């Protein structure tokens, strides 16, 4: 395989890894907000699937010919669809909250409910090949790809294409991809540098103490669940409004569970979640791209690795992760 081919294969793999990692990052952030607040969330998969579906259906609905042009214009239509997906994620998460906080349903079961419900509802209302007017456009185009740009001329001149290659990784991504990176920073900052963050973490470690200090535990848990749900909603929206532009039944194919793994792998920290998501995204991408590198190895065996790695990390064989102490236990206000 030539050098050019290898370069192209590497870039394709990295871009695929980024594409895979966006919903996983957002899902992991969602789970992190919830678990840091003391609510275990294995329903990320359902939240991703449901919001991917509603975001898509909102796009389909607004694309119908009888909808006024003002609403159909790209930015308006897609923003509305995005909002629908965000709210869906938030509401799904609130359902988890109502079940597990109000009705004291075991948090694992409540999460399972979300997952099963999402598969059923999206399957029931699914419409085959519903048309839309298009998905989110890419932003910040790579200067090197513009034919007469001076950057390209410079690169041609020196036969030095590394900036061009890096540009293909950094640029031409949709808004959610960039937003997910910003959100990792924002959530990380908020969690460790603000009063809200301190209170949130205290809920996950010792809600009784937080309650004693006058924090309204339930209200805070609901708020954080809603915020976390919106993050998962954004991840779902990425699937149908940015990455693929179409909805398929069961299209999340376990990404929500990978997000859960990534959250654990990243030790319940946003920066760790990003690292984990990139690593898992890379493993997923490699699974699809092995042949590009001329490696004849069954992709399923590569696909197994992230899951095994998560078990290894969780079992403390390599490094040690520390879950929030109070996550999983329903808090009883006295």
């Amino acid at each position, binding site marked *: 395989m030539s050098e050019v081919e290898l370069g192209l294969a590497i870039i394709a793999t990295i871009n695929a890894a980024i594409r895979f990692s966006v919903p996983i990052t957002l899902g992991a952030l969602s789970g992190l907000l919830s678990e840091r607040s003391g609510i275990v969330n294995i329903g990320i998969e359902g939240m991703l699937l449901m919001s991917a579906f509603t975001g898509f259906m909102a796009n389909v609905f607004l694309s119908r010919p009888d909808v006024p042009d003002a609403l159909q214009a790209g930015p308006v239509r897609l923003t509305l669809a995005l909002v629908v997906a965000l709210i869906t994620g938030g509401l799904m998460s609130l359902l988890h909250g109502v079940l597990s906080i109000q009705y004291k349903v075991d948090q694992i079961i409540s999460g399972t409910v979300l997952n099963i*419900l999402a598969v059923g*509802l999206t399957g029931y209302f699914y419409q085959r090949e519903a048309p839309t007017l298009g998905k989110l456009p890419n932003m910040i185009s790579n200067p090197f790809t513009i034919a007469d740009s001076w950057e390209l001329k410079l690169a041609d001149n020196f036969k030095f294409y590394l900036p061009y290659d890096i540009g293909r990784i950094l640029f031409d991504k949709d808004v959610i991809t960039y937003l997910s990176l910003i959100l990792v920073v924002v959530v990380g900052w908020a969690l460790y540098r603000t009063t809200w963050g301190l209170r949130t973490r205290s809920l996950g470690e010792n809600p009784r103490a937080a309650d004693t200090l006058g924090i309204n535990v339930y209200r805070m848990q609901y708020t954080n669940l809603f915020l976390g749900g919106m993050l998962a909603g954004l991840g779902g929206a990425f699937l149908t409004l940015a990455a693929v532009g179409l909805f398929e039944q069961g299209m999340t194919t376990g990404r929500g569970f990978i997000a859960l793994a990534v959250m654990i792998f990243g030790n319940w920290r946003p920066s760790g979640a990003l690292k984990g998501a990139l690593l898992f995204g890379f493993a997923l991408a490699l699974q699809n791209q092995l042949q590009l590198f001329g490696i004849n190895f069954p992709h399923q065996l590569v696909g197994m690795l992230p899951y095994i790695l998560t078990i290894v990390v969780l*079992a403390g064989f390599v490094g040690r992760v520390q879950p929030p102490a109070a996550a999983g236990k329903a808090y009883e206000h006295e």
Partner: protein
Amino acid sequence: MATTARSQPTPALSPRSSSGFSRVLTALQGLLIPALSVFTAILMGSILILLNGRDPITAFEGLFEGALLEPRGLLATFRNMTPLILSGLSVAFAFKSGLFNIGAQGQLIVGSVVAAWVGFAVDGLPPILHITLAMVAACLAGALWGAIPGALKAYADAHEVITTIMLNYVAMQLAGWLISTGSADGTIKAGPLSNPASTDAIARTPPILESARLPSIYTIPPGFQLHIGIFIAIIAAILIWFLLYRTTTGFQLRMVGLSASAARYSGVNVKRMTILTMAIAGLLAGMAGGIQTLGVNYGYEGNQSLALGFDGITVAFLAGNNPLAVNFSAFLFGAMDAGTTRMARTADVAPELIQVIQAMILTFVAADQIIRRLYRVRAVGGPQVRISNRSEGEL
């Protein structure tokens, strides 16, 4: 069902302590919540059908006829409920010991693949031996796959919910590789259990030999048959009930479920119990997989039993994690699945409606307070579905 009243000091551990009459009464009251849950879920399903502009009465008539009145439908109901009994048992059994087995799916896949392997690779055995060998292999494979999260929980404090979810995916990928067809040009070798005679690109194992097929009890020509698996499943349910409520081991398992620390102080080896529980849970799910391979699919094909393991969770909870009641909730779910085709045909309702109804059943059974408030039912016994506070008491 949680059949005991809150006033009793040691609820689930003393099933024989109350008088016969009050036991019947509490058992009936225990049925109330699941029945109302199913009823409410069907009601909400009807609303969904109305929203789509279809007729719910026609739909549920179709479901009922398709599942119970047509001979083929009835056979399908029994056939569907067989793996559901076993995966439901798997979840319920682990639950009794305070463990949540979300890994029934993976254990089922492993059992399925191993049964297929023994089914096509071992030649020259009489059917009774061949079937027994394949079933035992499937059970052992499932038990091993279940024992892994058990051991990880016991010795590395890794939460079984996460490890079983992860092992589901490992099992899927592993099975996918074992049966993979390889690349067309032969640069990637086909998986060790793939079918070399396959002419299409669908990954599957070779068909199992005639001698490994579960015998049929009743056949509707052409070739639509009910295999003996249903009896195996029901017997397994009775054995599990016996193990849980009539043996010392079962007593210890339930004690661990109620309070791990109390069990430890009374001399129970909690670590060993954890591994044993998960191994038996895995065995049951592996058995479900084996039966599907030997009785229905006659081989293993990727994704053939996509949701059986997960459905086991709902089946178990609807039964209040009672091993005998699992038979009935599996029957209900098997019937729902069997009737969907007819429902879809006569009332033009998407078959996925059943999944929505099943999710709602799980919701209502788990959040029984909603049902109690809705129908003004007073509480008998504690909340029905609760994972024990085992995570608090370290092992």
